[in-house]
């Protein structure tokens, strides 16, 4: 089983030198902590910053400088500010290489739902619909099951969609999942997690042979 940091660390393996990356709120944010040494990537924050730096030192918070999660952050040498139209312009034009975001549900076709529970919770999609419509690589970081213990990997989403057939990889505490024409494909198992356990907790169609390697980090 992976903890949150393990999920983030696993996703960090998707990074490539020179990537422009947008990290969503929650676990995705943690990916920034695992950028491999010697690799240079730039983080895009869709509220208008390229080259996001770490949190400020205590006492150095700047209310004019936040990320898309409304957290106080910093810049780095080479950072750029821009307006929201340019921010989503670069996203829409496919300039963002990788986006990592959380999800409430992912379907075996790669649909994603993460913005609304009808009648219960309405937070809004923020920039998620734009990101999943246009980023070059889309990876979901989430818990494998919800609080009721039900699989969040489903034959089809039950909640209102954020995007259609767009997710390319899902990383949960149980493993790494890709997609083929039939549905989910188990690519790697979390350390110590057996295939049967994964199958039991996955409701969408899942291809898993048992020979999938355990996740390892460089």
């Amino acid at each position: 089983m992976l903890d949150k940091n393990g999920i983030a660390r696993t996703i960090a393996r998707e990074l490539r030198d020179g990537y422009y990356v947008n990290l969503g709120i929650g676990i995705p944010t943690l990916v920034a902590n695992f950028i491999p040494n010697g690799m240079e990537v730039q983080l895009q924050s869709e509220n208008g910053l390229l080259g996001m730096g770490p949190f400020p030192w205590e006492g150095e918070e700047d209310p004019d400088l936040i990320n898309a999660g409304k957290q106080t952050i910093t810049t780095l040498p080479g950072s750029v500010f821009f307006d929201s139209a340019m921010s989503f312009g670069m996203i829409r034009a496919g300039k963002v290489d990788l986006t990592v975001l959380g999800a409430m549900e992912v379907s075996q076709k790669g649909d994603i739902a993460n913005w609304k529970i009808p009648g219960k919770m309405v937070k809004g999609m923020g920039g998620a619909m734009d990101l999943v419509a246009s980023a070059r690589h889309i990876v979901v970081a989430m818990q494998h099951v919800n609080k009721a213990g039900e699989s969040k990997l489903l034959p089809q989403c039950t909640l209102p969609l954020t995007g259609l057939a767009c997710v390319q990889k899902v990383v949960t505490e149980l493993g790494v999942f890709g997609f083929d024409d039939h549905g989910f494909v188990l690519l790697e198992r979390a350390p110590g997690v057996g295939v049967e356990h994964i199958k039991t907790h996955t409701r969408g169609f899942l291809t898993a042979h048992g020979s999938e390697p355990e996740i390892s980090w460089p």
Partner: protein
Amino acid sequence: MNKGDRGGPGWTWGLEDDVFLRTTNRMNKVFKDALSALHDLQDGTTLMLGGFGLCGIPEHCISALVQKGTRNLTCISNNAGVDDFGLGLLLQNHQIRKMIASYVGENAEFERQLLSGELEVELIPQGTLATRCLAAGYGMPAIYTPAGYGTEVAEGKETRVFGNKTYLLETAFDADYALVKAWKGDRLGNLVFRATSRNFNPLMAMAGKITIAEVEELVEPGALDPDHIHVPGIYVHRIFVGTNYEKRIEQRTVRSRS
């Protein structure tokens, strides 16, 4: 006009700043405060408000709206503030009839009014929101975006395939007023923004039929580098200086000096 021609705008009227910078009526866009700048904003108006979260919101314009008690507003804003700050102040007072926003998760009162049906809400993708502002400011009646295709956002909307991708047709916003917050500005309406408080502000400034900018500092024309002005004054109709900005921080996240 030929090379070396000196018969063109050699401008006969002497020193340029004698003519161009004389304070006359319409190019001097400075108002004394938020209330005077918003004097003609009526009930039922559609208005855009800049800001992302609480960052770069037009605090003083919002205060003036509270003070005026203007009602039945349609507000276009990325977020809805928090319960007791930003647009949350207008929600508390039930001054807003309809919200067009992309993310409202920080405001419990908003969620309550929405679920109870008191408030009409249209949630749209953040990039769509931004680009519908840009379209208005750039005179484009509509734009195409893939965001929201296949979701409930696309319901009732025209779609069209370009290349191998499906796009939604989204129309430019049509807002009576845009209320924005800039860092610095001059009396011609030129605006400069700071860090991520820029966000939607320049786009809305360009999109409003009447654009009102509040600034932290009003400078003389010429003090802003012409290469680095974010919104040219042609888009801005009124400007005033806001004092004592609260600039509340929503998520104070820091590293400890261990």
